[in-house]
Structure formats: structure tokens, C-alpha cells
């Protein structure tokens, strides 16, 4: 009989069936259809395993796959649409993806359809800002957070840095950290590397410093500064606005200390001021041909890198026409030899293009009194996403790579609101949930400078080079020649990035070669060339307090100091090392570690530092 029955909709049939049941014998107005129709098989009992999910931005969701009863489902649909970044599978009803923006709690109706009918279920979806996207301030900090923070901002940090941060807490410490104390005394000492004759004024007047001496000047600051974040940030800017002394004539190398101090003194100042000063920096003008750019032959090298590398990013909002106009604006500087025979840079109106230039639709009026550099900087900053570009550079260097739009947009908004002041932005950054997120703590590979300068600062052990007979009076006691030479070998000598690209993190840093060279630099730090019994630096100062100096306590203490995470096996292996005396060929015989025995401390503690510096987690900041 089924086959002859007219086919109403499934719902109508089931309704009719129910009516026929209810109206047994004829009550009500429904048709009595005789034999019951086959049971309808519409989807029923739809359910999501997570019925009211709260998802986080930038976090792939665990697929939320619904179950149901009734017949097989032909298609699924959802209304309204899910928040951005989430995907809805019309074949399975599964919710997958990674949300890209927060969304308030919203009820969505999911419908499963087949030929027999439909089933629905409601699901309430909320998207909250993930910690890894959040520039909001972190509220609680662990000791581990402090060490991690120092790893990112202090080249690893000393034990005293940890104590100082813990005493006042990270937020207060960050506020202090972004205000730089005067470092004149330190700079005067560092100038001793440069053949200065006038330490008070730090004017280089004696002879031209060499490339090596200028590098050692900065290494001296990095190794000795009482506020290492200033150097960490300065090196970041040097890497971003990259220029190198490598191709410079000897008589212009003396300009480099000025550039170094630009990054140090302005690195947490105003971004607009910083970028203008960078564009006018003499080393930069020489390096990217600004001193060869004239009204008759405007040079495109600097303007191209200005847009492509320094301000906006490749192809990010500028055209060749803008480059050409900027090239005309970036004219007029040239070199000359002064009365003392030194090269210097001067602005020459006869070489400056006096005409109007138009960039991004904004016209710089023609004039021939000053340079046009400030105008180009302002037009770029005010008309293009420079704030986003610089924010992203900072975020990816200090937090994690592959930043999403959320934290960058928040940073850029703050930067603009603060008139491009960097200190408030950096305070926000270093207190943020994103900075302390598990994503950020996955770790970033240490570059060579971070590795070796970090080791020296944390342990106070540095390669010692006495001044040579030919060094000027006033050359510091440690000339840092070995450290500088190591930096050359490690392919990261300060003031000599390989190109205008700075030092891109490359496989080379994680090569066998570089790891060997790092180990060989560290061995220069731990070994004492005169005698091996604590001469030079008392490594006992690195140990835990007296009474807590068993082998395992020393292992734990030094691992914590160097931010090395040891597995239980590795921990035992280090303990065994400390409890061994090495014979010929390195053959160990048991010999309990005794911190009161000078030779134990001298050989084994230094050796343990060397071992820990080759631990995989030491290569990560």
C-alpha cells in the first residue's frame, strides 16, 4: 500500500501518522491514512561535544564534531555565520579553524538536513582574545617569568638582575628599565678603545680608529653596561636600520660611535626623531650612497631601502614613482675633508634638488635652504603603516615570530596615540600577556652576540686581553681583542652586518660551524691563562650560598643561572661530572665535589659552565 500513497512532505506524513494514531477511530480532522507510513528518519538529537565553546584567537580549535540520531545527514548549515577564522564543514557540521578576532558570545543555530527532514541545535560560540594576542598587562609573574624576561631583555641577566627584578616586580622594573640613566663614565671608558686623546669630551682626535676598535668600543658597552637593555635595544635598531663599516675608508670609521650612540640614546625615544636621525647619520649616508645623491643624479639606493627595509616593508604601499621622488628629496649631502684631514659629511645646497617633490600625493614645497629629509620621514610616517611595520619588528624580535594582526594593531594604535613615543609602547610590550604567553616562551634562537655576550654578562667570565705596546694610553685593561675576533668568526661583529638587511636569522646560526665557534668562544671565557686556581674571577660568587653547595645543588644553581633546563638524566650526568676527577685522556675517577677545594671550583665549576653553555636550551632565549 505504501507505493500507492501520495507523497506529502515527510513532516506532513508523520503528522498525519500521529493524527491517525491519536485520532484512533476518527477524532480530529486529519486524514486517516490507513497503514502507518515508514518511520521518518530526519536527523534528531543533534549535539556538539562542546556545546558552548569559548575559543581563543590565533589558536587552532579542537574540531568540534557534532553527533546526531536519525538518518544520515545530507548537509549541515549554520546561522549566523561563525566568527572570522572559524570554518564550518557543511558535510559534517564540524567546527574547525583558528579565530582571528574576538567575538562576544553569540547563539548560532545549526541545522542538519536530509530528505526526511531537519534537525537543529543551538551552539553558543564565544571568542576571547588569547594571551598570545593580548597586549593587556599580565597580572601575575613567576620566578621563571622573571628569568625568561631577563633572557629577552638583559642578554640573559646576572644573578643580581634577578634579585632586583624580584624585589620590585616586573611591572615596576619595566618602568625603570625604559628610563636610561646617564652612562657617560662608561662611554668614556669605552672610548679608550678608539685612540681618543680627550677622554672628557670623548672627541676622537688622535688617529682614525680601525674597524676592530669601533667594534670593541661597542662590545665594551655591551659587556659592562649597568643597564644592558639599552644595549639590547640599540643592537635591535642597528640590525633593523643596518649599515656597516666594512666597506668604509679608514678616515670615516670615526663616525660609527656617533651612530652607536644614536641607537643607545634615542632607541627608546621618539620613533620619528629616531628615523630622521638615522636617515641623516653619516655612516648611513655613506653606506647607502646618500653622499653621492645630487640634483643631477639622484641616487635610488637609500630611498629604496628606506621604503623597502626601514619604514614599510617590501612593496607595502610605495611605488617606483615614490622612490624616484624620494631620491630627489634625499639629495645634497656630500663628504669633505676638514682642516684636520678627517672626512666629514656636510649639506651642500648646490647639490640639493630645489624643486617640489610629491610622495604619496603629498607635496614637499621646493626650497633650497635645508635638506628635505624631515619632510620625507614625516610624509611616510603620516601616510603609510609605518607604525604597524615597526611594531611588528619589535614584536617579532622580542616576543615570537609570525605575529598575527591583533597584537600588532594594538601596538600600532598605541604608538600613534602616543605620538610615536617608543618608551610607553615598550613598557606595554614587556608587561603584556603576549610577551609572557606560552607561544612566546617556546623560544627564539640566540644569535651569536646574544650567546657570547650573554655568557660573559651572566658569569662575569670574559676573555682577557692585555693592552699591547702599540695601544694608546687609556686603552682599557681588557682590550676585548679576542671577543671581537670571535664575533668576526661567529659572523656577527657589531657595526658590520653583512648587508643592509642586517643579520637575518639564518640556518647558519644553527649550523654545526656556528655551534663550534660559540663553544670555542666560551672556552676563551672560562680558561685562565696564568693559573687555574681562581685567578681573575672568583667563580665561587656564582655558586649557591655556603651550605648549599653539594654537587647537585651546584648543578641546579648554575643551570638556573644560565636558564638551562636539564632533564633528569642530564642533571645526573652533570652531577657525575662534578663528582669526578679527570685523569689522563679525561678518564674520570670518583671524587666527591667539595666547594671548599679551590681546584674543584676552578676546574669543575668552570667546566660545568662550559658544559651548560652547550646545552640545547642555552641556545634559545
Amino acid at each position: 500500500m505504501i507505493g500507492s500513497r501520495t507523497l506529502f512532505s515527510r513532516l506532513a506524513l508523520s503528522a498525519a501518522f500521529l493524527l491517525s494514531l491519536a485520532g484512533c477511530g476518527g477524532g480530529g480532522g486529519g486524514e486517516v491514512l490507513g497503514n502507518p507510513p515508514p518511520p521518518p528518519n530526519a536527523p534528531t538529537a543533534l549535539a556538539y561535544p562542546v556545546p558552548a565553546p569559548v575559543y581563543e584567537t590565533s589558536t587552532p580549535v579542537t574540531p568540534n564534531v557534532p553527533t546526531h540520531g536519525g538518518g544520515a545527514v545530507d548537509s549541515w548549515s549554520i546561522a549566523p555565520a561563525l566568527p572570522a577564522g572559524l570554518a564550518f564543514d557543511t558535510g559534517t557540521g564540524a567546527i574547525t579553524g583558528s579565530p582571528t578576532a574576538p567575538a562576544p558570545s553569540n547563539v548560532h543555530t545549526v541545522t542538519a538536513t536530509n530528505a526526511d527532514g531537519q534537525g537543529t541545535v543551538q551552539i553558543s560560540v564565544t571568542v576571547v582574545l588569547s594571551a598570545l594576542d593580548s597586549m593587556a598587562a599580565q597580572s601575575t609573574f613567576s620566578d621563571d617569568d622573571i628569568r625568561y624576561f631577563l633572557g629577552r631583555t638583559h642578554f640573559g641577566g646576572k644573578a643580581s638582575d634577578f634579585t632586583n627584578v624580584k624585589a620590585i616586580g616586573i611591572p615596576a622594573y619595566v618602568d625603570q628599565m625604559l628610563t636610561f640613566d646617564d652612562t657617560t663614565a662608561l662611554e668614556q671608558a669605552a672610548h679608550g678603545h678608539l685612540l681618543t686623546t680627550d677622554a672628557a669630551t670623548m672627541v676622537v682626535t688622535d688617529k682614525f680608529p680601525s674597524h676592530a676598535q669601533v667594534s670593541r668600543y661597542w662590545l665594551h658597552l655591551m659587556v659592562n653596561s649597568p643597564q644592558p637593555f639599552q644595549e639590547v635595544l640599540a643592537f635591535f635598531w642597528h640590525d633593523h636600520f643596518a649599515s656597516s663599516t666594512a666597506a668604509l675608508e679608514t678616515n670615516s670609521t670615526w663616525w660609527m660611535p656617533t651612530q652607536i650612540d644614536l641607537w643607545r640614546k634615542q632607541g627608546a625615544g621618539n620613533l620619528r626623531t629616531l628615523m630622521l636621525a638615522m636617515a641623516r647619520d653619516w655612516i648611513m649616508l655613506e653606506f647607502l650612497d646618500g653622499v653621492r645623491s645630487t640634483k643631477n643624479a639622484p641616487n635610488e639606493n637609500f630611498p629604496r631601502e628606506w621604503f623597502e627595509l626601514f619604514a614599510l616593508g617590501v612593496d607595502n604601499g610605495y611605488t617606483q614613482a615614490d622612490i624616484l621622488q624620494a631620491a630627489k628629496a634625499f639629495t645634497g649631502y656630500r663628504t669633505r675633508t676638514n682642516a684636520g684631514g678627517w672626512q666629514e659629511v656636510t649639506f651642500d645646497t648646490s647639490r640639493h634638488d630645489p624643486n617640489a617633490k610629491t610622495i604619496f600625493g603629498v607635496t614637499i614645497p621646493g626650497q633650497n635652504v635645508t635638506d628635505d629629509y624631515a619632510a620625507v620621514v614625516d610624509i611616510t610616517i603620516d601616510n603609510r603603516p609605518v607604525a604597524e611595520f615597526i611594531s611588528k619588528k619589535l614584536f617579532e624580535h622580542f616576543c615570537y615570530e609570525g605575529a598575527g594582526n591583533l597584537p600588532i594593531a594594538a601596538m600600532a594604535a598605541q604608538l600613534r596615540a602616543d605620538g610615536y613615543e617608543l618608551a610607553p609602547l615598550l613598557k606595554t610590550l614587556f608587561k603584556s600577556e603576549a610577551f609572557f604567553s606560552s607561544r612566546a616562551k617556546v623560544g627564539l634562537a640566540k644569535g651569536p652576540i646574544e650567546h657570547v655576550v650573554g655568557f660573559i654578562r651572566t658569569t662575569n667570565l670574559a676573555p682577557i686581553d692585555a693592552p699591547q705596546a702599540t695601544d694608546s694610553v687609556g686603552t682599557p685593561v681588557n682590550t676585548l681583542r679576542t671577543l671581537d675576533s670571535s664575533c668576526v668568526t661567529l659572523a656577527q661583529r657589531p657595526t658590520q652586518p653583512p648587508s643592509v638587511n642586517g643579520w637575518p636569522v639564518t640556518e647558519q646560526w644553527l649550523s654545526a660551524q656556528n655551534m663550534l665557534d660559540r663553544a670555542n668562544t666560551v672556552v676563551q671565557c672560562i680558561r685562565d691563562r696564568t693559573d687555574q686556581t681562581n685567578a681573575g674571577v672568583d667563580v665561587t660568587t656564582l655558586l649557591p650560598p655556603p651550605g648549599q653547595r653539594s654537587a647537585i645543588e651546584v648543578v641546579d644553581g648554575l643551570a638556573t643561572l644560565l636558564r638551562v633546563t636539564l632533564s633528569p638524566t642530564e642533571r645526573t650526568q652533570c652531577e657525575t661530572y662534578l663528582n669526578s676527577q679527570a685523569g689522563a685522556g679525561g678518564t674520570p675517577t670518583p671524587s666527591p665535589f667539595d666547594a671548599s677545594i679551590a681546584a674543584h671550583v676552578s676546574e669543575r665549576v668552570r667546566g660545568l659552565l662550559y658544559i651548560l653553555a652547550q646545552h640545547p636550551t642555552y641556545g634559545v632565549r
Partner: protein
Amino acid sequence: MNTPFSSRTPHVRDGRLHVPRGSSRREILQWALAGAGITALGPWIDKRLPTASAAAQGNKILVVINMDGGCDTLNMVIPITSGSYVTRRPNIHIPAAAALALTDGPGNLANGLHPQLDQIRSMWADGDVAIVHKVGYPSENLSHFESQDIYSYGVRGEFPTLGIPQSGWIARFAQQYAPTPLGAVSLGAGRPTSFVGGTSGPLQVSSLSGFSFANDNGASNNHLLRLATIKQMLTASQATGTPGEVKSAIQQAHDLTAQIQAAVTSFAPTATYPSRSLAQRLRDVAILIQGGFETRVFYTTTGGFDLHGDEGGVTGSQANLMQTIDDAISAFRTDMVAMGQWDNVVIALITEFGRRNYENGSFGSDHGAAWSEMLIGGGVNGGVFGPTIADSDIAAPKEYLTYGVDFRDVYKEILNDHLNAPAGPVFPETQPTNVVLGVC
């Protein structure tokens, strides 16, 4: 005019290489992996270990010696029949009578060698020297850095258009055909651009004896125990992610240093190598060859060729440079012959440009363009190849020789015919000259 390029990939423009800033390490690695045809995710360092065997190489070897500064090859391979060579270089030419004749061996009447190249001249007589004239590239760049980049990267177009990541040609060779750290080795100071990029991390060491974990002389026994402890810990390590990559690199450093120092210790040379650094670097090459390592391409640099002043002729600066090269290669050849490896070797003497046809006011020569390349080794077909250098090429008003053979045509033949390594993946462009020389 700028060719549009993808905004997030490295590119060459105006002969300069640009890697977009903000390229995360992951992106660079993904490009590298994509270039190697490996698309799997995961710790990239595992991909550096040889998986499938590379193309069969046999045991053929290329030794690239870079004459840094722009070698005046007109004063190395002398155009002895050119009158203009003499008249335009009154103070720095090598007289035909002083040049070493090349009439024996493959025979050539138009060229002679600098008198300091007497041992190489003997190799010519054996048929082991090929000379290729007018090597260069179109639109010559007379800047050291720009031209060195071109020779090192080995491409003229845009990397993204070519579909390969930014890389030096030796890095690409190593990635494709010898993908272990010792597959290609650079010896000497500095980090050659030809080794940039790629995925196999070919070794760059200042010297083999320096490629070891430096000792702590005040505690050498304990230092050995430290190294042993580190190796134990690395073996036990379960590190993943970035620490895992660090671990693999450190472990590799320990493995490689042990292998190389064993080879250094057991090296038994037949030759006596001069103390000059080029000879010592070739000695290092001999150590690795005798040690049976998998290195297919060696690279080293010898400097001092940028002779803008006081170049000299039969004697002087250029002569000293020629002697250094001659003595070093001669010693190396002695060892290769003793090892039975000479026929497996091709040495290529390259430079970033030749020099002007004429001397300057300081008895030197300024930057030029095309130059003459010498290939030396048992694997070479002796003779003079490429377009001839006519007197009119040297005569006024010609400033310098212009190119007739693209430098990559020479490399391609070495790769295809000597190394049995099809050159396509290494030099993906078709060269303008596409000359077939027959040098190997």
C-alpha cells in the same frame, strides 16, 4: 624598470640580493624546503641528513680557487702576439720572450703563461690545463661586491621568478647533490656568498686544524671529560623544536670535528706544501680527499689581486701572486698523483673581473670585465677555448675585454661532464652564450 616580484620572497634586483626583512626563520626554511622538494613539516634539521642517495658522483672533485680583487689575467695568460698589449702597457707587460710558451701539449701560438707559472706550464704540456677566454656575463659590473655577488649567486634574474630561494650556487649544488655538511667545504677566512642559503649547511672553516673544540690548556684532562660529558648529554637529550635544532647542530659539530681531526692526524702527504695560506688550504683539501670524505666541491680564496698600482710585470706584485698559485697547485698535484686522484680533480681559477687593457698612471691596472679562466687537473681537456682575444680587443679605444662566454657555461660543463651532476638545479637559467666548450 622593476620586474614585479612577490613581496614575501627574496629577490635579486640590480644585481643585488634582497631578503625581505620580517622574513621569519620559518619562512626562510619553508622556502628552502620547498626548493629541495621536501614539503613535510617538522624540525628542518632532520632534512639535512641525506635521505635518498644523491645523483651518482663517483669521486670527482672540483676545487674552486677565487682570486680575490679582480685578477689581471692578461698578465697571467699573456696575448703574446698582440702589439697593443705591449704598447698600452709599457711598464707592466710581460714581453713575449719572457712568457712561457704553450707550443707543446695541446699547442697554442697566441698565448704564453706568466714566467712564474712554470709548473702549471708543465701541466699544460700534460694536457691538464684548459684556458677559457673572455669569461664574464652581460652588462658587466665593475664593482667588487656587485660582481662577486653575481659570480657567487650564479643567477641574474629574480629568485622568486626562478622558483628557488636565495642561495649561492655551491649551496644549491650541495643541497642537490651532496647534502651533508661535508658535501661542499669552504676553507679560509670569511663566509663566501656562494655558500649562502641552501638546506645542507656546507662547512665553512678557516682551516681544518682549527675545526676542533679548542682546548683548555690549564685543565686539559678535565676538558676532555667535559667534552665527553657533553656528548653523553647530547645522546640522552630529547630536545625538540628550536632546542632540538640547536641540539642537532651541536651534535653534528662534535661528530664532524672528531672525523676531521682524525683525518688531519693520519694525513701522510707526499708533497711539501709552502707555508703560504693558499698552499695550506690546498693541503687541507688533500687531507679531506685522502680521508675519503664525501666532499665534491671545495672553495678557497687567495687575495691581493686588486693591483691599482705597482702591478709589476715579469717581477713584482703580480709575479708574486702567480708564484703563490703555481707553488700551491704544484704541491697539491703531487699529492693528488700520489693518491691516484689527479684524474678526478678539476681546479678552477676564478675572479670577479679582469682588468683594463691598459696600465694606469700608477703602473697598475683598473677594473675591467671579462677575463681568462684556467681549469687545471687530470679531469680537464687541455687547450685554449672560447673566443680568441684579438689585438683589436685590446687596442684603443677598447677599455677592457668584453665577455664572450658566460661564466655559468663553464660551470655547467664542469658539473655535467666532470661531476656527473646535471647543472639545471644549480644554474636554472639559460645562459646567453650557451657555448659548448668541451673543457671536461
